[in-house]
């Protein structure tokens, strides 16, 4: 566990320039030892904005904590260190018939990061968020204390840490409940969406019959066509592995493309081609890598957005307000002409998320990304945030770079309770941005730390 200066980026290409970086290697060591400023755990840096950065403070990289601690192949219970990536986890468990209950759109995230952002997947309507399947975790705080937290032990600290953006301390290990699968395939199909009404109608029907559903929407469609897109839906297939491993090679974007690469013409062309290719596809078997992690095959895909990187927005709006609000948001994006590949639409179910700062909740979530073209992109985002907020929306910190103090407060009703559990030794660039000018509450003393490390 040593220190040095390194430049670390978030996935949207925001950079922490003056950051002290300490690589963690051992879960028994004190990650905070000898630090004077604030610290933040950093996994694979897949958060888009500044929630994984800590300008002026220290970043504690967790990738050296990549060990498995135990795996019960009868019950599907896995305990591993926080820096294990979902890719490594799946590599271990899938051949033995187990798969994470919830996976996000990339497997290049750490388990610790998945917990800290309480990530969700295409099966939220059935399984809830990632945190729903965390049985326990160990939390080390800057006062040197070490606690095993679960729904039974220190439940309040557990609720603060799941979705807690790394601000409650360092998670050293996590214990997960996995789900049984027969093999690496999904029975998948795609349906063309004519417009937004079609989405809302089809999504109810699909959610009843399919474990995984998600829609891709064309950001350039306007007027009656708003919401034109593709709905992907799938269930796990019981067909076992036919040939070992996905035959897909890894490609990479070797350098930053010029900012002009993504313009109205190229993106429209891509969207049209994508629409054509997918609109009529009969049910088929698809490898789960293709279905869940389509972009993982291209390393550094964020470089296609050029040096300035990309800005993401993901909001969730309550079900009643959703049809109106989503239409309004898509209209505004189309009018601005700044839309990009990934407009993703998904209906969240009503499984409650376990974290005080968890993002997923009942409603419809829309994720958009934009090539960062300076002030006019930020302006557009602010406009969209205002629309979503008026509809009672909430925003996802992992994908945010422009959220205001008020947006943040409106998104998380349990914020005050969360702040009681903040670790005074932890902070992030995101946290300082969304709490600027708010009274900082030092964490209240908790129950004296019992030695409950196994």
């Amino acid at each position, binding site marked *: 566990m040593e220190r040095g200066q390194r430049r670390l980026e978030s996935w949207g290409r925001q950079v922490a320039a003056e950051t002290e970086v300490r690589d963690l290697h051992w879960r*028994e060591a004190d990650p905070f030892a000898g630090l004077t400023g604030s610290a933040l755990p950093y996994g694979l840096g897949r958060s888009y904005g500044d929630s994984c950065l800590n300008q002026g403070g220290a970043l504690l990289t967790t990738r050296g904590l990549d060990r498995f601690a135990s795996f019960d192949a009868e019950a599907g219970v896995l305990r591993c260190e926080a820096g294990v990536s979902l890719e490594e986890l799946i590599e271990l468990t899938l051949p033995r018939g187990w798969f994470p209950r919830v996976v996000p759109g990339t497997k290049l995230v750490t388990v610790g990061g998945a917990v800290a952002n309480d990530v969700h997947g295409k099966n939220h309507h059935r399984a809830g968020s990632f945190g729903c399947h965390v049985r326990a975790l160990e939390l080390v705080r800057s006062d040197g204390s070490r606690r095993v937290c679960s729904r039974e032990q220190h439940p309040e600290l557990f609720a603060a840490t799941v979705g807690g953006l790394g601000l409650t301390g360092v998670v050293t290990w996590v214990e997960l409940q996995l789900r049984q699968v027969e093999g690496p395939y999904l029975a998948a199909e795609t349906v063309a969406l004519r417009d937004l009404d079609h989405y809302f109608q089809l999504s109810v029907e699909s959610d009843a019959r399919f474990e995984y559903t998600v829609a891709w929407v064309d950001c350039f469609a306007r007027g009656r066509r708003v919401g034109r897109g593709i709905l992907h839906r799938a269930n796990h297939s019981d067909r076992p592995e036919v040939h070992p491993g996905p035959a897909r090679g890894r490609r990479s974007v070797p350098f930053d493309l010029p900012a002009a690469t993504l313009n109205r013409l190229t993106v429209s062309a891509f969207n049209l081609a994508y629409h054509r290719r997918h609109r009529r596809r009969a049910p088929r078997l698809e490898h789960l890598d293709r279905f869940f992690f389509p972009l993982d095959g291209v390393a550094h895909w964020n470089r296609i957005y050029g040096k300035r990187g990309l800005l993401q927005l993901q909001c969730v709006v309550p079900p009643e307000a959703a049809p109106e609000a989503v239409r309004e948001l898509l209209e505004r994006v189309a009018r601005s002409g700044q839309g990009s590949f990934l407009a993703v639409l998904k209906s969240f179910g009503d499984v409650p998320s376990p974290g005080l700062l968890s993002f997923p909740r009942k409603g419809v979530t829309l994720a958009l990304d934009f090539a960062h073209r300076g002030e006019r992109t930020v302006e557009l985002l602010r406009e969209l945030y205002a629309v979503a907020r008026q509809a009672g929306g909430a925003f996802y910190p992992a994908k945010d770079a422009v959220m205001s103090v008020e947006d943040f407060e409106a998104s998380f009703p349990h914020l005050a309770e969360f702040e009681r559990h903040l670790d005074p030794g932890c902070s992030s660039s995101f946290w300082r941005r969304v709490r600027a000018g708010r009274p900082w509450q030092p964490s209240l003393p908790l129950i004296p730390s019992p030695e409950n490390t196994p």
Partner: protein
Amino acid sequence: MKRVLVLGATSAIAEATARLHALRGGALFLVARNPARLKAVADDLAVRGAGRVEAFVADLNDLSHHAELLAAAETALGGPPDVALLAYGSLGTAVVLDRDPDAAVDVLNTNLVSPVALLTLVAARLEKVGRGTIVGISSVAGDRGRGGNAVYGASKAGFTAFLSGLRARLWRGGVHVLTVKPGQVDTPMTAHMTKSRLFATPGLVARGILAAVDRQADVVYLPWFWRPILAAVRALPERIFKQLRI
């Protein structure tokens, strides 16, 4: 099931190599000093598929443990190891080593005295059965003494020479000795250094070690490009070499 003895099992290169053996279902006997860290490594290897994992806590600089731990390893593994990997070492801190003779002796004890003593015992056991491979992690630093870290270089030069002699003595008896010379590797030992493009990951080095064991190589530079670099470094006349600030 391959029987593998890992000496210094919590070193990054050793752990990465042990993971590959675990994937192949090998039986592993792990020795390291820190009990909590050793347990973390052992549990991980068991989950990854090792046929058997035994952990033994010992400070290998205390030579009096050596015979006992080798006997324990043979009992646990059910015979002498097929592969004995010696991976512990200490880099020391150059500024301290330049002034403090005790610190210099510590580095020599860890990198040379203890490995020579331990491998002498291992060699005797393998010689008796007439098979097995001894893998010693030396370093490119042993190829020529640098002003930047003379003591570390000396310890690794000594270890390289010992492995070379051991190989010459044992090969006729069916025991193979592999000298591994990694260049710069991104491990906790080098955490304070700025990482250039020459740095390799422990995983890459581990794959190189397994491949070298499989093809019975004598000396392997990892990654391979260090071999020509060191050939050039060794060819420099001392009169020029001494002027380099490396």
